[in-house]
């Protein structure tokens, strides 16, 4: 018994060292964003800055020549709207595909599922043209629709809706409840963990998306954070301390959300995949 405990401690220490090595790039990024530019590339690395320049660096990023605050706001707006819309649409479709029997249901589901395999890049050109025709080009609303058109949420939530026993639905219907009532009052509360998981994942993906804003936005005033830090990097060229401060600013909100909901995210990712 005792030797097992000792083994566990040894392995934990070993893994701890491996873990620190693994997140070293992040630690370096954080430390670089606190230093004056001249100290960033010094070797040996000063993990704890000898001279602090933190306030100055972050001020340069947030209140400098590039309107970082605006990009932040744009990203927040697009991400929140995308997440909300995607959640509603996916949950409704998932309920329809799992709990209502209607003509052509399985065929339609197969068609929707098949679109999952289409790489986004293969449809960029026609999407771009259609967006210009429809007047959705260079608008946040267009980005929101793109983010909501993903079928992964439908697929993931359907898996969980299928786990609800039909008897519950049946008895509600005998009590003369319509599908909308059942969906809102019974089905949605039962799959809350799955909803939370998908919500966090969708949030992370939309927040980090670079490709769609790059293709479908033109005006600088609509730019999202990802386009913003790229622009900032080109703009401040060789100022690595500022670049790192920008990168930290982009990752930090997600990190906080992830820390709060890490159980949901990790379990959700694992469940959705192993089940499927």
């Amino acid at each position, binding site marked *: 018994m005792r030797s097992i405990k000792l083994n566990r401690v040894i392995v934990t220490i070993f893994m701890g060292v491996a873990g620190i090595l693994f997140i070293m790039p992040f630690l370096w990024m954080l430390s670089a964003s606190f230093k004056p530019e001249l100290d960033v590339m010094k070797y040996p690395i000063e993990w704890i800055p000898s001279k602090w320049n933190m306030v100055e660096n972050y001020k340069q990023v947030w209140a400098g020549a590039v309107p970082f605050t605006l990009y932040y706001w744009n990203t927040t707006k697009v991400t929140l709207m995308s997440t909300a819309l995607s959640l509603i649409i996916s949950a409704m479709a998932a309920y329809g595909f799992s709990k209502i029997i209607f003509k052509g249901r399985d065929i339609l589901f197969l068609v929707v599922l098949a679109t999952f395999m289409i790489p986004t890049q293969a449809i960029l050109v026609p999407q771009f043209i*259609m967006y210009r025709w429809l007047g959705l080009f260079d608008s946040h609303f267009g980005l929101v629709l793109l983010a909501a058109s993903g079928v992964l949420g439908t697929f993931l939530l359907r898996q969980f809706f299928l786990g609800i026993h039909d008897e519950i639905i049946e008895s509600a219907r005998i009590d003369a409840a319509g599908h909308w009532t059942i969906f809102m009052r019974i089905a949605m509360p039962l799959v809350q963990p799955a909803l939370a998981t998908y919500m966090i994942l969708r949030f992370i993906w939309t927040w980090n998306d670079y490709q769609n804003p790059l293709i479908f936005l033109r005006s600088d005033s609509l730019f999202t954070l990802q386009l913003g830090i790229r622009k900032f990097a080109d703009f401040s060229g060789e100022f690595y301390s500022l670049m790192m401060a920008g990168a930290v600013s982009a990752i930090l909100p997600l990190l906080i959300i992830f820390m709060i909901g890490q159980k949901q995210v990790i379990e959700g990712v694992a469940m959705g995949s192993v089940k499927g």
Partner: protein
Amino acid sequence: MEVITEEGTAKRSGSPGISKMRKQSFYDNIAGYLFIAPMLILTVTLVIIPILLSGVISFSNWNFVSGLDGFGFVGLDNYTRLVQDESFHRSLYNNLIMIGVVPVAMFLALVLAVLINKATYFKTFFKVIYFMPFISSFVAIALLWRVLYHPNNGPINGFLRSIGFEHPPMWLADPKFALVSVMIIMVWTSLGFNMVIYLAGLQNISRDLYEAADVDGASPLRQFFRITLPLLSPTSFFLLITGVVGSFKVFDLIMVLTGGGPAGSTSVIVYYLYEVAFVNLESGYASAMGIILLILILLVTLFQWVGQKKWVNY
């Protein structure tokens, strides 16, 4: 539904039942369509119509700047051009090399998952650490690694010099090393996802098996190869397929990190497609490339269907 014992009762209990059922199924049809309508409308307009259009445009020499007048069919010209296009070959070749990331990440993830599952404290802490790159944006990651890889005074080469390498590789600046540099980052970012999936797979293996093996005197290593590995095969297979498909879709990282350079050494199909479509403005040619990419991914998926039946032990 009806059991006819006497005509009278059958009519009485049967007919209202039937009409009620009809109403019910009519109502169900309507409700079903209404529930899936928003999703279906979005998918049809933003995915299905575009992929069909992609197919049509791929047989033309059109570019979207010239409007509809410049639309002319050229048959299979775009596809034959792909066969001869050196840049496309290069990108496809790079994509195939990149698949090498998948087994490496899977192997490392499996080792970590087994160790964390069996022999450590603070499981959650480790999960969070390894999952961090998965939640970070590729733009931020690319900017970070661009600095880390800096050939002259970046921290990585600083370290290599300090342990005695006179001339460490130039990483992203050297066409020979650029792709390897990108692949290292890809392993780093995909490790957490793979590990979490493996951990979930390990949770599903019943402990009785190991206990029985212990009784029979099988060594831990033997247990790993005889129990753990075979029972994880569905998980491994899933990771292999998602990994391969994912490696064909790496765009953000390449775009910000290298822009396909130096000298095309890190260009991949999706990046080349972007260049052809939005820099050279050749819509027809880009669409043909998109269709080829779709076919590649369909082949991988088909392989998955066939393979799952053959090699996976459930």
